[in-house]
């Protein structure tokens, strides 16, 4: 049996419920949550969609680490707890962990400027608003400079590709330490998208300049602490810090 300790939230209060489930081979945390919701407690709330780590819905804190529940196997977590003392993963170093040994602790993702709606469901509107506030898109037709079939070197495609892989799961947003000293910080996901559209040869220069102006601020690229937490946590291997440093270089020139 595996013990899951899940933080529950409603309008007025917050508490922890404990569930015991029989672990099956290959069982993910998302599988376990469904098992609880369908067989034990129908009131348990969490977001889900693809169950294959491509949609970004099921972001949550699992043993205090922000991760996608669908991609996280119960057996892996258990090993992690046992090996905690020799783990290189700084994220796992947390004194409070001790009281939850042998258990899997599941909590909603802590996001800056955001409220918990219910159980593991967090309000994502502030996050999405930030991402789209920098206008990450191509103003097609505005200058009539967008030639169909723009030639793009495969090397450029690959550069952009690193950043288009972002699924906006908000894991990086939740782990970024820069929010501690600036609540208005744009965050890694937003700035990664800015770099993606700055790079894109289909984008016109005026839009690129506008993009640079928007992020050339203390709560933009200059707010980053360059500690690479976002790069380490990204489930799709997007390197936001790299994008941020590139943007800084462009601005300095």
């Amino acid at each position, binding site marked *: 049996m595996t013990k899951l300790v899940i933080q529950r939230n409603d309008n007025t209060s917050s508490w922890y419920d404990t569930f015991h489930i029989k672990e099956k081979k*290959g069982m993910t945390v998302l599988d376990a949550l469904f098992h609880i919701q369908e067989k034990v407690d129908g009131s348990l709330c969490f977001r889900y969609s*693809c169950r*294959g780590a*491509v949609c970004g819905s099921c972001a949550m804190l699992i043993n205090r680490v922000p991760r996608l529940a669908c991609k996280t196997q119960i057996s892996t977590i258990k090993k992690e707890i046992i090996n905690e003392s020799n783990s290189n993963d700084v994220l796992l170093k947390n004194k409070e962990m001790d009281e939850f040994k042998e258990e899997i602790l599941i909590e909603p993702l802590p996001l800056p400027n955001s409220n918990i709606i219910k159980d593991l469901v967090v309000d994502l509107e502030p996050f999405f608003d930030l991402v789209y506030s920098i206008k990450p898109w191509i103003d097609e037709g505005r200058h009539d400079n*967008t030639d169909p079939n723009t030639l793009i070197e*495969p090397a450029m495609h690959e550069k952009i590709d690193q950043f*288009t*892989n972002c*699924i906006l799961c908000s894991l990086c947003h939740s782990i970024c330490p820069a929010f501690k000293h600036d609540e208005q910080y744009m965050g890694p996901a937003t700035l990664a998208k800015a770099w993606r559209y700055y790079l894109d040869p289909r984008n016109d220069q005026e839009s690129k300049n506008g993009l640079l102006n928007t992020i050339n601020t203390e709560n933009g690229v200059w707010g980053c602490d360059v500690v690479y937490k976002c790069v380490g946590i990204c489930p799709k291997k997007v390197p936001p810090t790299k994008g941020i440093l590139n943007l800084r270089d462009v601005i300095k020139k």
Partner: protein
Amino acid sequence: MIQHDIIIIGGGLSGLRAALEAQRSGKSVAIISKVYPIRSHSGAAQGGINAAIGSDDSWEKHAFDTIKGSDYLADQDAVQVLCKDAPDTINELDTLGCNFSRDSNGNLAQRPFGGAAYPRTCYAGDRTGHNILHTLYEQVMRYGIKIYSEWLVTKLVIEDGQCVGCIAMNLLDSELEIFQSKVTIMATGGYGRIYARSTNALINTGFGISLAYHAGAELKDMEFVQFHPTTLWDTNILITEGARGEGGYLLNSENKRFMEKYAKDSMELAPRDIVARAIQQEINEGHGFEGDYVYLDLTHLGKDVINKKLPGIREISRNFADIDPIENPIPVQPGQHYSMGGICCDVNGKTKVPGLYAVGECACISVHGANRLGGNSLLETVVFGKRAGIDAAKFVDENTFSPTEQKLVEVLNDVKNDIQDIMDMDIDSSGSGSGSSSSNNESFAHLKDEVRSLMQEHVGIFRNEKGLKVALSKILELKEKSIRLNVVNMSKQYNLELVNTIELKGMIDLAHVITLSALSRTESRGSHYRTDHNKRDDNEWLKHTLVTKDEHGAPTIDYKNAVILDVMPETREY
């Protein structure tokens, strides 16, 4: 009451594309989606999108392959629209910033796909759907289109035969709201989750299709359910056809490339219906591995090809099967993947209900007939999404019907009562209060598992009269039971148990229509394979199945001939 000219239900590729076009026409447009649009299942599409842009290729060749792949049930006029519009559609997406993969000269790259005589599948690595979804969503944000995220539409409102809006529930607080519109566009995707093994996202219940069915629309060719040959063993996560397009082999337990027995020329790149049946037959005859799977071997492709062209497949294999395809073959089995059938509509998305449109996987424009070719579904979403958006705007201008508020309120009250019924515990069995449902009540989880295993067992890759009749009678039992569906969770916020329960009723209705359609079609064509009628019968069955709900609420079947232009049906060999 919320009012918009055009309301689009669903925020995947079809819905977003339709919304953009409708918005460009100056209409008031809104999208209602039960998830944030970027969480839609379109984002899981991997391999690519077809367009005849190669110098030796042509839209006619694309059309021919599509029609042959459809086992000649596709409407050829619709296929022509799809294939002619394809190159412009790709250019448009490219212009909007979709990060398609490139050849060494910087032009759009194309890869071979099943059933295609030419490598005409454009792709963005093996994350094509993801790339198009985000590109289109960014454009939708650019235009400031209103989005109601995490709202479930529970009923379409029909007044004097015309669709005048819908009732939707805000998942945040379970409050119901009236949405009045001149046009409603269904873009709600497929129903994969009525099968036990499906590649589909967990949200793909087909509920939108059932809404249209209850609103009086026809459901067309619902017996044609595509099983993808290669889904990851057990989790059934999609392993793209692109893996075979790049040269992957299928191997049985004797280490043989068994496809030579089934499609000696095309081998692994025969169309999906043929490859899926071949794999299932190998498994059934004892040539699979313990646990019902075969191997998809990519090891000979080498690290570079896998990392460059199939990085997502490597990631999925490692994360969900603990296998690195660079070193070891991937265990795969067929799984439900796509619904060729759906809400019957024309090439502009119009259904027979005025004011109601459908587009994408939930629709049946008959471009895929009895079997869809890989790379044609993403194409369908954008080509017909655009057309539906344009036509919907026209309909808004031409439509003179003025709906009454009374009808909308009446339907709102109906929905309220339905939900009240689900929330109220049975009086005879009250007392438990919490925990599992009492004996007279049914929980969604139990019935859902039943319908899924039933469909998988009897309405799957191989079908016959006996099994289909068993399925039909059990589905009727499930329908009876579903009247007593009841939730234990009384919470107003994010009541997923309530959402699942509402949707389950729609899933059972679809299961009924699919099974009935499959039982009636006494031939084998494309994905519909009857072991008791294992030949295609063009004399009798070159026609579409149409199911509507009669006045007693029961499904009735009618037929309509397929549109044949210049491609004459012949034996399908690969």
